[in-house]
């Protein structure tokens, strides 16, 4: 049989060689990657980036929970100017798309960042983090269909870059929000961000995280993420990127079967730095074993966007 085609089209010219990206916040800005072969990745999604630099939350910032972890990093990042000046020129020399994850407290923040990143060589696309549960205001866009749509539209007008919007699962009606974002002109959706959780240190009688609550990621949330993708992918006509608890090839395939066009690997990077590459190879093997030549054979239901 012929070559396996693992490429994925996420719209507006964002074409990935592999369906396996590394998720925002789990690969920094792509530079600190010991033991990783970056060339195996579909894309790097960067840490959430804000208009001005942010120090982030005081420690303790992370805690382990059953099959998961909580984080309350608080969007520590060097700000968009540093990204443009120091990082983008390096990315421009990589043979790998870099998608900048964008966060803000107000529509104007997002718009300003999108403008600043528009047309900058080395930046392949934006992922809007409208769901970061750690910064008080971060929740507001992601949980309200109208607001999410308005934000998407404003950013859409500010940039010609491919625009992925990341859904938060901390909502009653994910599908309504997904539809509003798709209608407002997003090129793709990613689902899901972390769920808000809490851990208490019984011995010392206090929340483990200084921020009290944090975002839950890891295998624990995978069933919730798969269900989110399953429902969203059949409701919108743009590609959906699955993220949440992917540790192995089989996990990634669950998402692709559920209707995801691609996946992001997050927490797994901490455990196995080569996870994303291994999963990419595993997907290729799976396709070969079934005699399929592309990812199109995978979904259980016909995707809404075909």
């Amino acid at each position, binding site marked *: 049989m012929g070559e396996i085609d693992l490429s994925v089209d996420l719209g507006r010219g964002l074409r990935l060689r592999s369906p396996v990206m590394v998720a925002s*916040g*789990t*690969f*920094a800005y792509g530079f*600190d*990657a*010991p*033991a990783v072969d970056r060339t195996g990745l579909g894309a790097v999604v960067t*840490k959430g980036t804000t208009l001005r630099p942010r*120090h*982030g*939350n*005081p*420690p*303790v*910032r*992370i*805690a*382990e929970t*059953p*099959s*998961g*972890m909580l*984080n309350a*990093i608080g969007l*520590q990042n060097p700000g968009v100017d540093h990204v443009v000046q120091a990082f983008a020129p390096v990315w421009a020399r990589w043979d790998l798309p870099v998608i900048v994850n964008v966060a803000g407290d107000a529509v104007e923040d997002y718009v300003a960042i999108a403008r600043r990143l528009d047309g900058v060589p080395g930046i392949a696309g934006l992922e809007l983090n409208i769901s970061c549960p750690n910064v008080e205001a971060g929740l507001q866009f992601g949980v309200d269909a109208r607001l999410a749509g308005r934000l998407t539209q404003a950013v859409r007008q500010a940039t010609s870059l491919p625009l992925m919007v990341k859904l938060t699962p901390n909502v009653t009606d994910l599908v309504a929000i997904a539809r509003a974002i798709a209608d407002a002109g997003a090129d793709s959706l990613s689902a899901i961000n972390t769920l808000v959780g809490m851990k208490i*240190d019984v*011995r*010392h009688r*206090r929340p*483990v995280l*200084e921020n009290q609550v944090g975002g839950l990621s*890891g*295998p624990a949330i995978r069933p919730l993420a798969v269900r989110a993708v399953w429902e969203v992918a059949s409701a919108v006509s743009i590609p959906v990127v699955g993220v949440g608890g992917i540790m192995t090839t089989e996990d990634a395939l669950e998402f692709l079967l559920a209707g995801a066009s691609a996946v992001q690997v997050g*927490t797994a*990077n*901490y*455990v*196995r*730095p*080569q996870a994303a590459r291994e999963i990419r190879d595993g997907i290729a093997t799976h396709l070969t074993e079934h005699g399929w030549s592309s990812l199109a054979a995978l979904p259980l239901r016909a995707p809404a966007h075909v």
Partner: protein
Amino acid sequence: MIATLQAARVLERSTPMGGGVELICETPLAADVHPGQFFQVAVESPGALLRRPYSAAWTDPTRGLVGFVFNVVGAGSDWLAARNAGDRIDLLGPLGRGFAIDGGRPAVCVAGGLGIAVFIGLSNALTGRGRSTTILYGARSADQLLPAARFPKTRMQLATDDGSAGHHGRVTALLSNAIVGDADIFACGPTPMLVELVRWAQRADVRLARIQVAHETPMGCGVGTCLGCALPRAGGGYMLTCQDGPCISADLVEWTRVVDAFHG
């Protein structure tokens, strides 16, 4: 960073002191380790998802050996303590910055509990460079002390919480007498011990730049990608323990904002 991922073979497991386990592992990574650096060790316990950070207690680069000394506090260390000769463990490292060991001044090492681990390798490196080395070492009780024989050519002063060996009380009580002149200070132990050391230095007018501490905090990645291991930076913001540390000059830290990440 030259850190890599490797399966290491456990050569030997022993219990060098009460509550302490030592694993000797065979790995070519041994040659790259600087005293104070650590590895992210993968654990396969039901209760553990993330890797666990462990200092290389000592290395033998020619034989390709790394020693880890640790105690059992939870699921990860429990799993690690159950490894035996012949088992394989998966190491990512060496990671972070070790101690700066050049120079000729006398060295005083301050160790609390399992913090002693890192001084096996460090004291060797210091005495190997001809530096006069004293270790101040505190533990709960005499049976929990790593034998002094592991620290040849060093002077050792002990303190125990129950008075069963050395000074009856905290190791930090030994500081005033032991640190004279312009000694370099190396410290590893629970965060409250580090904080006490820094307070003592401020009172005793010892410049913080003369103190290097090994900082412990829960780690997500160990490689600078999760930003989970924040350590307050003097002047504002945060450093990353896994990149800027774990061994770090005490004057770079804003100690008033340092929390005991393990709530110890």
